[in-house]
C-alpha cells in the first residue's frame, strides 16, 4: 500500500493553458532520432493535398507551398472509396532519390548523435522468426510502401525546417469527463522512420503520439492521479500508471517523463529496449492444429511449452532516452498549441496526414488526425479519453468512498431481504417435501405425486440459487468492508494493482549476444539458401536429404552460440523420435500388437492371481 502526499496540484480555477503547462511531459528521445514534435501548421505549409480516387489514380488537389490550414478544411465532395491525404515529400525522380540518399549520408556523418543498434538485434529471434523476418521484408515489395528515398527526403526537409526556425510543439487539449479532468498532449511528428532508420516494422509520413494526465478536484485544487502513454501492443488500464507509482513512472517535478521509441515515437515509462512483435495472420484452422500439437507436446510428452510464439516477427523499439530531451528545464522547451473540437483542422479534416501508400495492412499508410482514424471514423482516445486508459469505471478518489459506502449499504439490505426469503421458501420446501414423502407407496396418487415432485424440484433449485446469491454476496460484502476500512484509514490500493501486462524493457543480458552469434544470425539465412542451391546444383538426387541435414545442423549449431543447446537438442531429438516411432509402428505393427496383447494378458493374469490370493 502506498499513500500520496506529494500531490499538491493547481487551483481548479486555472485556465486550460495553465493546466496543460503545469503537467506538460518531458520527452526523452534516443540518440540518433531525426524527427521531433512539431506544429501541424508548419507541416501543412510544407505539404501538398492529394486525393486517391477509387479508379486507382492520384490527383494533386493543392500543390505544396499553397496549402494552408484554412484551405485544408474546405469542404470537398468525393466519391466513396476516395482518400484525401497530405504529401510531405513530393513525388521524386530517380535522380532526386539518389541525391536525397547521398545528402542524408552526409547529414548523418556531420551529426554527433548517431544511433547504434548494438550487438544482438539479429540474434534475438531464432531461425524461424528470422526466416519470417526475411519473408516480411519481401512482402514490402508486394505491398504498398514508402520508398527509402522518401524517408531521406523527409529527414532533410525536417532538418531544413528546424534550421530555419527551431521549435518543439505539443497540441494540448483539456477534456472533462465523469469527474476527471484530462490533459491530453498530442505530439505530431513529420515522419515515422522506424523501419528505414531503426530496423523496425514500418515507415510512414506523419505520426501522432499521445500522453495524458488525469486529474481530480480536491479542496478547490486539481490533483494529478494517473498518467497514460500511447504504447505499442498495450491498451486500456495497462497504458496508465498512478502518479505515486515510482516503479517505472519518472517525474521531473510535476512533469511525467516519456521515453520515446526511436523512429516509432511510441511512448514508454521506463528507458530501455522493448521487444515489439508482429504476429503473423495464421488461419484459425492452422492455429487449432498448432494448439492441439502444443497440448500433445506438453501433456503427453511432458515437455516444456514453447516460451515464444515462433510465428511472429520480433522487432526492437529503442527507447533509450539518451538523446535530446524536451520539456520544462530540459535542453529544449515546449511551445504549447491549444486545441479542442472547435479547432477546424482537428474536426473538419478527416483525411490522412501523410502519404497514402496503399498498403492493405495499413502499416505504411499515414495516420489520420487526433480526432479520427485512418478511415475517418472517430478515434476512441479523443472521444473517450477515460475508456482509452481503462478509467471509465474508476471514479475519482473522493467519490470512490461515497460510492463504496452506498454500494455496501445496498448489498447489506439485499442480504437481509435474502435471509427472510430463504427462511420462507425453506419452510415451504419442507412442507411440500413432507407431503411428497407421505404420498409414497400409494399408486392411486401417482399423478399428484408427479406434479408435487416437479414443484419440489423447482422450489429446491430456486432455493439453491437464493442460497448461492447470499453466499456470494457475503464474500463481496466482506471484501467491500475490508476496502472501506482501508479507505477510512487513509490507505490506498497498490499502485500497480490495475496492470495486467506492463511494457517492460528487455534486460540487457537477454538482449546481448556474442559477436559470433550475431554474425551467424546475420549470415545464416543466406548461407542456408546458398547451401540449398549448392545441394540442388551438385547433388540434385539427394538434395532433399541434404536440406534436412543442413537444417538440423544450422538449428543445433546456432543453439550452441545462443547458449540454448540443451533445450534445442531436446526439442530436435523428440521431434525426430516421434517420426521414428510412427515409422516403427507402421512397419512393425504386427509384432507390436502381439507384444501388447501378450503384455496385457500377463498383466491380467497377475492381477487375478493376486486377487485370488488376497
Amino acid at each position, binding site marked *: 500500500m502506498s499513500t500520496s502526499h506529494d500531490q499538491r496540484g493547481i487551483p481548479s480555477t486555472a485556465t486550460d493553458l495553465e493546466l496543460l503547462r503545469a503537467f506538460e511531459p518531458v520527452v526523452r528521445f534516443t540518440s540518433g532520432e531525426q524527427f521531433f514534435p512539431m506544429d501541424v501548421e508548419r507541416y501543412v505549409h510544407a505539404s501538398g493535398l492529394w486525393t486517391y480516387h477509387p479508379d486507382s489514380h492520384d490527383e494533386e488537389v493543392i500543390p505544396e507551398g499553397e496549402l494552408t490550414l484554412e484551405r485544408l478544411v474546405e469542404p470537398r465532395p468525393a466519391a466513396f472509396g476516395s482518400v484525401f491525404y497530405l504529401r510531405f515529400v513530393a513525388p521524386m525522380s530517380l535522380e532526386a532519390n539518389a541525391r536525397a540518399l547521398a545528402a542524408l549520408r552526409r547529414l548523418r556523418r556531420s551529426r554527433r548523435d548517431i544511433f547504434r543498434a548494438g550487438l544482438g538485434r539479429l540474434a534475438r529471434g531464432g531461425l524461424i522468426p528470422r526466416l519470417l523476418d526475411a519473408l516480411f521484408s519481401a512482402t514490402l515489395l508486394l505491398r504498398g510502401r514508402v520508398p527509402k528515398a522518401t524517408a531521406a527526403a523527409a529527414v532533410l526537409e525536417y532538418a531544413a525546417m528546424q534550421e530555419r526556425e527551431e521549435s518543439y510543439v505539443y497540441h494540448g487539449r483539456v477534456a472533462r469527463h465523469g469527474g476527471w479532468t484530462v490533459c491530453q498532449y498530442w505530439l505530431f511528428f513529420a515522419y515515422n522512420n522506424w523501419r528505414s532508420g531503426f530496423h523496425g516494422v514500418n515507415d510512414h509520413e506523419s505520426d501522432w503520439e499521445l500522453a495524458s494526465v488525469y486529474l481530480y478536484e480536491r479542496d478547490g485544487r486539481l490533483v494529478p492521479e494517473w498518467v497514460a502513454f500511447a504504447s505499442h501492443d498495450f491498451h486500456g488500464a495497462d497504458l496508465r500508471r498512478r502518479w505515486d507509482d515510482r516503479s517505472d513512472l519518472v517525474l521531473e517535478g510535476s512533469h511525467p517523463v516519456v521515453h520515446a521509441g526511436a523512429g516509432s515515437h511510441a511512448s514508454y515509462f521506463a528507458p530501455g529496449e522493448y521487444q515489439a512483435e508482429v504476429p503473423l495472420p495464421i488461419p484459425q484452422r492452422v492455429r487449432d492444429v498448432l494448439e492441439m500439437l502444443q497440448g500433445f507436446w506438453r501433456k503427453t*510428452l*511432458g*515437455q*516444456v511449452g514453447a516460451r515464444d510464439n515462433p510465428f511472429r516477427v520480433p522487432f526492437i523499439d529503442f527507447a533509450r532516452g539518451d538523446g535530446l530531451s524536451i520539456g520544462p528545464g530540459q535542453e529544449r522547451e515546449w511551445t504549447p498549441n491549444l486545441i479542442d473540437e472547435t479547432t477546424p483542422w482537428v474536426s473538419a479534416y478527416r483525411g490522412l496526414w501523410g502519404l497514402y501508400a496503399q498498403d492493405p495492412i495499413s502499416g505504411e499508410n499515414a495516420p489520420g488526425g487526433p480526432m479520427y482514424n485512418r478511415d475517418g471514423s472517430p478515434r476512441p482516445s479523443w472521444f473517450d479519453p477515460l475508456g482509452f486508459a481503462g478509467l471509465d469505471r474508476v471514479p475519482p478518489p473522493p467519490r470512490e468512498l461515497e460510492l463504496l459506502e452506498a454500494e455496501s449499504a445496498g448489498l447489506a439490505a439485499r442480504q437481509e431481504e435474502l435471509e427472510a426469503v430463504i427462511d420462507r421458501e425453506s419452510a415451504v420446501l419442507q412442507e411440500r417435501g413432507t407431503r411428497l414423502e407421505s404420498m409414497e407407496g400409494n399408486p392411486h396418487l401417482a399423478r399428484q405425486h408427479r406434479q408435487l415432485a416437479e414443484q419440489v424440484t423447482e422450489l429446491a433449485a430456486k432455493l439453491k440459487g437464493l442460497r448461492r446469491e447470499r453466499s456470494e454476496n457475503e464474500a463481496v460484502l466482506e471484501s467491500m468492508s475490508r476496502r472501506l476500512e482501508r479507505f477510512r484509514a487513509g490507505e490506498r490500493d497498490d499502485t500497480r494493482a490495475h496492470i495486467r501486462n506492463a511494457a517492460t524493457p528487455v534486460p540487457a543480458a537477454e538482449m546481448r549476444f556474442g559477436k559470433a552469434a550475431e554474425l551467424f544470425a546475420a549470415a545464416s539465412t543466406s548461407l542456408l539458401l546458398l547451401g540449398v542451391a549448392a545441394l540442388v546444383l551438385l547433388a540434385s538426387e*539427394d538434395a*532433399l*536429404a541434404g536440406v*534436412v*541435414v543442413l537444417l*538440423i545442423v544450422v538449428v*543445433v549449431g546456432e543453439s550452441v552460440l545462443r547458449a540454448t*543447446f*540443451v533445450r534445442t*537438442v*531436446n526439442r*530436435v*531429438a*523428440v521431434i*525426430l*523420435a516421434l*517420426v*521414428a*516411432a510412427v*515409422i*516403427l509402428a507402421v*512397419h*512393425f505393427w504386427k509384432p507390436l500388437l502381439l507384444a501388447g496383447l501378450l503384455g496385457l494378458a500377463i498383466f491380467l493374469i497377475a492381477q487375478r492371481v493376486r486377487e485370488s490370493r488376497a
Partner: protein
Amino acid sequence: MSAERVPDASPARPKRPLSVTLVALLALGVAVYSLTAGAFALEGGEADRRADGIFDLAFGLGVLVAAVGAFGLRSWAWTAFMTWAVIGLTLQLVRYFFFDDPDYAAMAINTFAVLAMSPLEVQVAFGLRHPRNVDLARPTRNPLDRD
C-alpha cells in the same frame, strides 16, 4: 567398526527414474557389445578390419562412460545421449526416407532413449532444469471441485 554417519547437509540427491536405469542398462549392453566386437576385430589381425575395430573400441568406451554418467545422473551424460540420439535418428530417418535402407534396431534404440530421457521429470533429475520452474502436477479430478 562402523563409522558414524554424518548427516548430509547438501540437498537430497534426486531418485534415478526407472527409464534412466533402463537406458543406462541398454547403453551398457551396447558398450559391452562394441568393446567385444572391437577387441575381436583387432585380435583377428586383418589389416582391413583394424579401423573398424578401433572405431568399435572407441565407441564402446564412449557409451560405457555415458552409461556410468547416466547411472550417476550427470548432466553431461544426458547431453551426450541426446546428441548421439539426434545424430543417430537423423541418419536413420535420412536412410529411411531417401535411401530406403534404414537400420530399424538403431532407430528403435535411439527412439527409446529419447522418449525415456526427454520428459521433464528426467531433466529435473539430471539437474538440467530447476523443479521450481517446472509444473509437474496433473489436474485434479476431485468431484468436490465440481458444482
